[in-house]
């Protein structure tokens, strides 16, 4: 009689931990797409973000601008194969993006955040619009949380800036939101330093006649981590509103005190 062998659980054996097979990023020597990721203490999400970045385009480079990190973010980025630009002081998202843009070699510059994992298929449209679609500034079509009776101040500012730039079709799309992509031509036309103030960069791009388009919508509102303290959120709102003021000032500098809008023949000299 054949005895059935009962499977025995061998508790004394050492567990084998298989290291996850992760292909390191390959930075192409002559990239078409540069993916720029500012990171400040984002060790937790960075591996997933880099994994998705690596799937965007076969000829790409990934630049992590590790600024002010104290949690080993630059080491993680380096180990995973990204080009790392390191800064001891925090730069903020916008300056981080500018620093990355200055180091980038690709024809299309794709900007994402290190704290938000966006799948590669959601990122490709931005790179493709620049590489193949003739777009200079490819924006995320996300216009802020919809159908709120009282919208967030920043949402109002984005909509109004686009309307004042005679681009109401862009609705609330903005360079303040990621993902977005710039062409090398856009970078050369508006200059990299203006990227420090994203709404000003958008205004400059529209005013210089670059091809600005909302190419794809990624619902970043839902992906945005809800962990920021209220006081900081208010400060950020204030900063972004100030940025929009600078953009409006750019419009004024370019087109005059009324931003190029006439006043339908007001006889102003009749009142003194």
């Amino acid at each position: 009689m054949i005895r059935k062998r009962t499977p025995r659980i061998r508790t004394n054996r050492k567990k084998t931990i298989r290291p996850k097979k992760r292909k390191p990023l390959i930075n192409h020597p002559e990239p078409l797409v540069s993916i720029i990721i500012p990171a400040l203490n984002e060790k937790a999400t960075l591996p997933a973000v880099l994994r998705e970045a690596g799937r965007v385009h076969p000829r790409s480079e990934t630049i992590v601008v590790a600024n002010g990190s104290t949690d080993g973010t630059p080491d993680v980025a380096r180990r995973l194969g990204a080009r790392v630009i390191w800064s001891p002081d925090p730069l903020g998202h916008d300056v981080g993006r500018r620093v990355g843009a200055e180091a980038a070699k690709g024809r299309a510059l794709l900007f994402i955040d290190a704290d938000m994992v966006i799948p590669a298929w959601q990122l490709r449209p931005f790179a493709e619009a620049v590489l193949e679609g003739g777009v200079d500034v490819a924006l995320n079509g996300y216009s802020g949380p919809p159908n709120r009776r009282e919208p967030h101040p920043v949402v109002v500012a984005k909509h109004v800036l686009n309307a004042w730039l005679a681009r109401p079709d862009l609705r609330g799309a903005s360079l303040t939101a990621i993902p977005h992509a710039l062409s090398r031509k856009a970078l050369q036309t508006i200059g990299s330093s203006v990227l420090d103030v994203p709404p000003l960069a958008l205004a400059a791009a529209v005013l210089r006649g670059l091809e600005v388009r909302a190419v794809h919508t990624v619902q970043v509102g839902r992906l945005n981590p809800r962990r920021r303290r209220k006081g900081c959120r208010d400060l950020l709102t204030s900063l972004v509103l100030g940025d929009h003021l600078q953009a409006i000032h750019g419009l004024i500098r370019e087109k005059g005190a009324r931003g190029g809008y006439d006043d339908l023949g007001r006889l102003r000299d009749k009142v003194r």
Partner: protein
Amino acid sequence: MTILDDCAIRLGDNMNRKGLRRGRPESRAGGIRRKRTGHGRIPPLSQRAASDETGRPGWMETAARKAGFTAGSGHAASRGCGTTFREAFNDWFSAAAESRKGGGTVREITDCALAFREGYSAGSGIPPKEIPLPLQRSASAVVTASNEEKTLPLVLSELEKLPLQEIMVVLNGCTDGSLEAVFRHPRVLKLHFPERLGHDVGRAVGAKAVRGETILFVDGDLPVVAEELAPFLLAVDRGTDMALNDITPFLPPFPQQDEVTRSKTLLNLLLGRPDLQANSLTAVPHALSRKLIDAIGTPALAVPPKAQALAIARGFEVTAPSAVNVLRKNRIRAGNTGAGNAVAKLIVGDHIEALETVMQMKGIRLDTTRLSRSELAKARNAR
């Protein structure tokens, strides 16, 4: 007067006023008020000075109606030889305000004035045309009109119900019977320009010409009943420098708003007055104080958002005391309909000009944070 009579008047009055205030979102206002009193509890009469959302009169209104009735009966008995209607109201109001320590909100005072007039009308049998308002300073009205012969008489007859020192009509570019319409109102002053002055310039010209301490601005093409104009006069008379029309209740939600409305909202936001929402000097009716006009200068009034921005930036008191639905009544003309129309572009340009002016005063970033991006990044990362 029996209680029944009183109710009948009240009811009639209510229906009448509802008819005039078409489109006033009672439910929204009601929702806000109900919250304040808590759990749907209706406060006792003694706590409600003016009528609440149910249309029931507050104690002060009831008192005003009674006082009006007494004054009206006295007037009938003395065959019109006693004190005038306006004097009677002012006497009663100053006494009532003293006992209450302050007169309440402009809305409450207006309601009291209307209740007094109602009572007076019932007591004397002669309905007074005038609305008595306890104004401490002189008040003028400025009406701008170009080719408004149909609506101008209505506008003027409503203004004549208010205790105004002068009514100034600025006629410009009129080719119809507007001028004749003004001649039929002997009290009304006029300025006449053969050419069109352009948007908002007429108001600035009128502001320069009148002498009142409080100046009410209305359009010749937009008749607004005197009851709805009163709160603006009262607000400025009691210390506000700029009393704007509160158009918030009549606006669609943000996604359906046009660029003009959004521009107005943004201007207030950037000037640090998010509470003003889309309320703007571009909309009529509104009232200004002489003090404000002297400070910012009449030319600024030709570009309303600029005047508003200057007023806020210089620390004047800007409020929106009352809501008149002008969006529905606005005359539709060629050039003011559709997105991106000529008037919309004009108003957009006005807002940019307004910001340009305050940027010269306060710097490009106005009063937004001076914190650097680096410092902000540090603050945000410190969890």
